[in-house]
């Protein structure tokens, strides 16, 4: 069994489609899971016990079950009660729900790390609760939590591969599909490993720039 570069060359158009969907899932996943986390974290820390309980229940469910199970659940179980969305949407929703749960916990620990004195300073300046969140607490919490968030984002990119199990045509699916026809394991898995490596390097490079820009000077 020798390495056949031609197999890879012939697969390029199909692979390109896979990369596109992987990237689309990653970008949408990162943006949506972050936006939702920003909205959900204050609610997770709300003084209302019911609200707080609901969010901690949601986080427990999504952090303590395998993401594969969540994907299958959304795709195969929900249609039985009349909710049917496309495979791509199912995959995206699963990724967003999963990483939203992680991001909320990151932001929460960030917000808890903001010194009480700053809250009080905000109050002394006459800021409302929302203003204090927006102007003082959240920006600081984001900076504190940034390295952990970057971890989550990289993990999200890697876990887009799992969406292949419900037939979303992303990078891993493309490789597996070609392999099922041509048995070119070495060629296809080496190729996608390299592509994933490049994508992840690209993402971490980008995020490191952001991190540097916003790092806390202590």
């Amino acid at each position, binding site marked *: 069994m020798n390495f056949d570069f031609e197999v890879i060359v012939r697969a390029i158009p199909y692979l390109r489609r896979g990369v596109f969907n992987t990237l689309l899932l990653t970008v949408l996943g990162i943006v949506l899971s972050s936006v939702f986390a920003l909205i959900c974290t204050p609610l997770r820390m709300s003084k209302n016990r019911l609200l707080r309980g609901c969010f901690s229940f949601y986080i427990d469910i999504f952090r303590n079950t395998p993401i594969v199970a969540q994907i299958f659940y959304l795709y*195969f179980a929900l249609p039985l009660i009349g909710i049917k969305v496309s495979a791509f949407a199912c995959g995206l929703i699963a990724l967003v729900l999963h990483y939203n749960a992680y991001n909320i916990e990151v932001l929460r620990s960030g917000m808890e790390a903001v010194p009480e004195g700053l809250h009080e300073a905000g109050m002394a300046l006459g800021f409302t609760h929302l203003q204090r969140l927006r102007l003082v607490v959240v920006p600081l919490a984001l900076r504190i939590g940034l390295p952990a968030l970057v971890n989550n984002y990289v993990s999200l990119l890697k876990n887009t591969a799992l969406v292949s199990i419900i*037939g979303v045509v992303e990078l891993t699916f493309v490789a597996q599909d070609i392999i*099922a026809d041509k048995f070119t394991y070495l060629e296809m898995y080496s190729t996608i490993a390299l592509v994933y490596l490049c994508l992840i390097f690209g993402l971490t490079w980008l995020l490191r720039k952001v991190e540097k820009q916003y790092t806390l000077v202590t």
Partner: protein
Amino acid sequence: MKEKGNEEGKKMRKFFVLSFTLLMVFSFISIAAEAKTLEEIKRAGKIVIGAKGDYPPWGVINAQGKFEGWEIDLCNKLSEYLFGDPTRVEYVAVTGGNRIPFLNSGKIDIIWATMGYTEERAKVVDFSTPYFSSGVQLLVKKGSPIKSIKDLRGKTVITIKGTTGAQGLEKLVPDANQIKFDKTSEALQALRDDRGVAFAQDDILLYELVHDYPDYTVVGEVFNPTDWGVGFRKGENDIREYVNQSLKRMYREKVLQESLKKWWKGIELDEYLKRIDAMFQK
């Protein structure tokens, strides 16, 4: 600050060069499981067979966790010929997608899992003489407007990765949109959820499914007919020869036919028995 950035860039470049070199090195290493001989299997006192566990009635795992079905009967018979004991088989459940890697990485000794002969497959595994043949048809909901594969143009069709159904449709109806799964159970659930208008798969499996799901029916002309064979690692000719002889013996002793009658609940039994006769009397 700038220097640090440069250093990081260097590090990254180093990593890339390293990983690329590794890839190149791997590309020149030939990988193949060590070949086994018939003697070694006999000495081991058991044969490891990759069989279907989700493909009634050819190979299924029953409620007790045991493999059973037509192919399983044949595997047990092979074990009887080999060791004088039908229970010396270690079964490994395989899927259409993983059976060949399992074989070539040495996880199993032979593949006996509804595998049809294709040129692509024959490049990586050796086949026994055929013992059965099937074609691809469509499973649709009763009353569906789909009557033939021509009706699939521009429609969404459910298939299984790497099967003759997926490959045949790709050629015959390239503008049908395929959603591909790994398992029959997943494909069937997707069909029941109306995620596609039809499920293209081996006719025999579909006839079996219709038994359990009477709301569905098999339609369309048979396309991509394929002969089924037992799969071996390339060059393991003594094992292949032994299985070929065993298959002939099973046909002569009518084990093959009687077992098929026992398991097959579909409507086209006579047709299949005729196909088998034609195959063995060639």
